[in-house]
């Protein structure tokens, strides 16, 4: 579209009518330039693919989007759109757009727990068979499982995440293999007046449901199966749930426990470890990056500790980081590895997208080896491509890579049901505060509430 129509009006004419004409022309010019901007997406330039990502690691996703746009060589342009930081807010924004049929949503980074919900609601498309075959190739089984629902692959795993045990080797020369062992070690430390806390996510939020899910799966149980059958009320899952709840209660009610465990989230655990008050911590790999980062962004090696391992106010020449170590997630049953709950982000294509074929292509580029490596090293999120775990540059960034990989290999997924959000809310409500759990009673109530959530009959608190 050539010369804007406003070009003619700028004569020496300074009468009132002339001025009015100038305003009108300026308005017309504004409108037409808006029209140019508007149609560049459809008619003029290459098709725009909007890529909605969480705010965390948005920089890295943006870089990947720019690289993929370059590689697409004019066939499509990926425009990154940043969603809020909180998972609930991200989900709400996406749901609002998708329910309203927004065609400007093409690719979404969705939390691993939303697959069943988004698929059932008809918001995301099943990956076509050829795309699914390519995505499956070389991808870890655990993350793939999170993107699978009712036998089909609905998204392409981008990042994954898992918890392992982080501990202080001066306080625990050999890491505990089971929860029972960890609790007695912690209580022994407390009796000696040494740092004894077991840091785990006990606040009333998703993290508490994750803890419970890991525990019940490690004990050989399941909350709900993929067909929506609630298993927690019947054996063997009932027994496993009681076992899980019993251990959780003991961790929280132990005299050696952190008094603020009932409000502790991931970051509180990290801080307690860095402050030298915790002996054990169940957490994600970001804690390693954090303790190695100087303040104010990280822990800067943690606080100084004395010969005994107590936090010291003065420079003792020894810091928490010198004794910081990691081990596999403690198991519930001796000899059986734990099944840590898997987290992460999958890439899905919306049903409202106008360019699904291009979007599938872009998804594959966005989760390429290079982009996953960048996310892993710059944003601290472990990759989903198995080969990267053998990559020296990845191993250098993640010294705990072996424990992480093992954890991912034994992973469990959270209930694959569209009602997962409601289930998680009622679970974390029933399990908080963890010190006051009554294992027998709580499991019965869980079974009741989960059935109602599954049928979308009950309320969520």
């Amino acid at each position, binding site marked *: 579209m050539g010369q804007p129509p406003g070009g003619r009006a700028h004569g020496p004419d300074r009468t009132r009518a002339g001025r009015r004409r100038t305003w009108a022309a300026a308005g017309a010019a504004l409108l037409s330039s808006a029209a140019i901007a508007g149609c560049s997406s459809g008619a003029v330039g290459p098709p725009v693919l909007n890529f909605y990502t969480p705010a965390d690691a948005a920089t890295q996703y943006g870089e990947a989007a720019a690289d993929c746009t370059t590689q697409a060589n004019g066939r499509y342009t990926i425009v990154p759109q940043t969603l809020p930081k909180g998972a*609930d807010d991200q989900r*709400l924004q996406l*749901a609002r757009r998708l*329910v309203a049929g927004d065609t400007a949503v093409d690719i979404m980074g969705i939390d691993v727990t939303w697959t069943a*919900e988004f698929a*059932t*609601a*008809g918001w995301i498309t099943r990956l076509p068979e050829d795309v699914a075959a390519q995505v499956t190739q070389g991808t870890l089984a655990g993350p793939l499982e999170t993107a699978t629902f009712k036998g089909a692959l609905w998204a392409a795993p981008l990042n994954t995440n898992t918890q392992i045990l982080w501990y202080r080797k001066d306080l625990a020369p050999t890491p505990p293999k089971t929860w029972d062992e960890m609790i007695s070690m912690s209580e022994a430390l407390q009796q000696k007046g040494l740092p004894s806390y077991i840091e785990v996510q006990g*606040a*009333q939020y998703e993290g508490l449901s994750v803890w419970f899910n890991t525990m019940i799966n490690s004990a050989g149980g399941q909350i709900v199966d993929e067909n929506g059958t609630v298993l927690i009320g019947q054996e063997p899952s009932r027994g496993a749930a009681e076992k899980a709840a019993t251990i959780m209660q003991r961790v929280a009610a132990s005299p050696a426990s952190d*008094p*603020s465990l*009932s*409000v502790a989230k991931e970051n509180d655990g990290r801080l307690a470890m860095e402050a030298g008050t915790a002996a054990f911590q169940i957490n994600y790999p970001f804690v390693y990056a954090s303790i190695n980062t100087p303040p104010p962004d990280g822990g800067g090696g943690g606080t100084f500790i004395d010969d005994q391992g107590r936090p010291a106010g003065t420079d003792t020449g020894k810091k928490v980081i010198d004794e910081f170590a990691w081990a596999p997630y403690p198991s519930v049953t001796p000899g059986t590895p734990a099944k840590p709950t898997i987290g992460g982000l999958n890439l899905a294509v919306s049903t409202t997208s106008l360019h699904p074929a291009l979007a599938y292509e872009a998804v594959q580029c966005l989760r390429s080896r290079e982009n996953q490596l960048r996310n892993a090293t710059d944003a601290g999120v472990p990759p989903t491509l198995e080969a990267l775990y053998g990559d020296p540059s990845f191993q250098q960034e993640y010294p705990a890579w072996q424990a992480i990989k093992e954890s991912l290999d034994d992973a469990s997924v959270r209930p694959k049901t*569209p*009602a997962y*959000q*409601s289930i998680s*809310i009622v679970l974390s409500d029933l399990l908080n505060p963890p010190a006051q759990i009554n294992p027998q009673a709580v499991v019965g109530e869980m079974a009741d509430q989960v059935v109602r959530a599954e049928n*979308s*009959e*009950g*309320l*969520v*608190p």
Partner: protein
Amino acid sequence: MSDLANEPSTQRTEPAAPPERAPSSPAAHRKPGKPALSEGKKAERKLGLLLCAPAAIIMVLVTAYPIIYAVWLSLQRYDLRFPGEQQFAGLTNYAAVLTSSYWWSAFLVTVIITVISVAIEFVLGLALALIMHRTIVARGLTRTVVLIPYGIVTVVAAFSWQFAWTPDKGYLAALLPEGAAPLTDQVAALAIIILAEVWKTTPFMALLLMAGLALVPDDLLKAAQVDGAGAWQRLTKIILPMMKPAILVALLFRTLDAFRVFDNIYILTQGSNGTGSVSMLGYDNLFKAFNLGIGSAISVLIFIAVAVIAFLFIKIFGAAAPGSDEGKR
């Protein structure tokens, strides 16, 4: 008495006020059997109605449509996650809400917040109103200063309260014993929510009460003083009785507002540790569980509760509905 009823009506219009209520006061010549209007009056009235019509129609569209839609949604099984299973469900959603312990605990929390915060606001508001009324120097400045909290966005104020009460960060948390995290304890968190509500809306209460104070004739107070009435007696025997209509309107507005408390709780605690109000419950069911049926049923129940409160205030306590003729000569 001058035109008292006009004062509060400039503040706010709540939906619950019934528009026509037969005046019980001496306005005998305006009873239903009034003389027929003249032709001119009729035409004038017709023109008046026509002029009002566009605004009234827009109001009805904007307010009635969402209300009717919410009622309709509340009678459906409608969950965004199961679009294929949408169907008419009668009153099952209401049954689910009313038999749920979550609803009743949220209801109790809401009632506690409402009663305590409105009571404190009334006492403080009356004190502020008396001060503002009596101030002679820098009257405008005093009134402006008092109104500042009301002018601050609730969410912004709630965030600053939250930071103030966060251990290690906040100046108010620093006053508490080491390790105290007041926002994680039910009673302490409710107290903080009430404090934030009171801080925020006391000026509004004061403003409404000040309008009522303006109606108390100075001569009357002077006469009482001459007769030997003390300050307390003048307050309880003259000022408060004469202000009664204004007090009831102020209490009504604040009760209706407080019952729907949302912003402060949403920012301060997100409803955790048993601090969720009924509005929080509705929000969570609508926007976290995506359950439009249950969420709408909760919204409708809140609406009914608010309507009942308004009805009780007007019927039992005899609060004048804003815009009604009571008090006019």
